[in-house]
């Protein structure tokens, strides 16, 4: 499933990047070092962190997208950098649990 298809299924909104990549798996984690050590290409990463380093970590592993749950707003500086680096950030109004469940329902497993 592509990021765009996932967005459409759930009514989520892309705040940066192109939602074109194929999603291969999911990580739910807010520790950047943890994700850095375990991320793989095509991962959809659910995190409440919205710091600039989230973009760096997503870019490092060529993640499919970052999903920011709970309706959290992401700063313009972060979104501009994400656009520059081609990192797709999705804004989801639901909780991290519901976001993970939505990925599961879409047939996407662990990263």
């Amino acid at each position, binding site marked *: 499933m592509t990021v765009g298809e996932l967005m459409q299924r759930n009514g989520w909104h892309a705040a940066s990047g192109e939602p074109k990549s194929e999603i291969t798996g999911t990580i739910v984690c807010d520790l950047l*070092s943890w994700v*850095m*050590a375990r991320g793989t290409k095509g991962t959809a990463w659910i995190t409440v962190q919205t*710091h600039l380093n989230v973009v*760096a970590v997503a*870019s*490092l592993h060529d993640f499919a997208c970052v999903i920011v749950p709970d309706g959290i707003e992401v700063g313009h500086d972060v979104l501009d950098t994400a656009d520059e680096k081609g990192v797709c950030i999705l804004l989801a109004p639901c909780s991290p649990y519901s976001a993970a469940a939505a990925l599961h329902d879409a047939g996407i497993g662990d990263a």
Partner: protein
Amino acid sequence: MSRVYDLHIHSCLSPCADDDMTPENIAGMAHINKLDTIALTDHNSGENLEVTAAACAKYDIRFVPGVEVNTAEEIHVLCYFSALSSALSFCDMIYDSLPDIPNRPEIFGNQLIIGKDDAPAGSLNKMLYNASAYPLEDVVALSELHGGCAVPAHINRQFASLMANIGYIPDGLFSAVEIRPELPAPDLPEGMKVLYSSDAHQLQDIAAAAQAAPSPHPIGDIIRWLA
């Protein structure tokens, strides 16, 4: 009255800092801004401490060797030391505990090691922004074993800080905390000392903080003051 100390400065060794944050430039900027004490606190490494100490000595600026450790919980903790040699052995231990993931300079930035008179001396391989293997309490204990002290950094910031990551100040673990003056002030236990520093990643940050000084007070021997 300007601030007299700045105990949170990153050199070009930290991937997120500008490449012109060289030891000579940092010392020169501190001198221009009439700082009498500065600490270098790069992420998880002390590679530029020795040469920054030498640069500060030229201007008669008191130099505190330090490091900003990223704990296993991803809490940023500033560790300060009385002796350069102790700081270096502590930093080696922290660096050794980082996961063996190389830096990607095009994504995270350069990790430049600087030699005498700002001569380039290579770059550090492992990704310094990563978390060390040591949890918070171990970092505090190990810094004290090395004759130093630990101060949680920017505790009122919503990212990689004591309050953001664990949500409270553990009883008796710290005698001082660092606060970002531009962010809402946190509630502090009685008697807790507060440090305000620039967390400079660019040269102009040192000047801006020195001129905005919220709490100028001479601190004398930093380790004794914090103990």
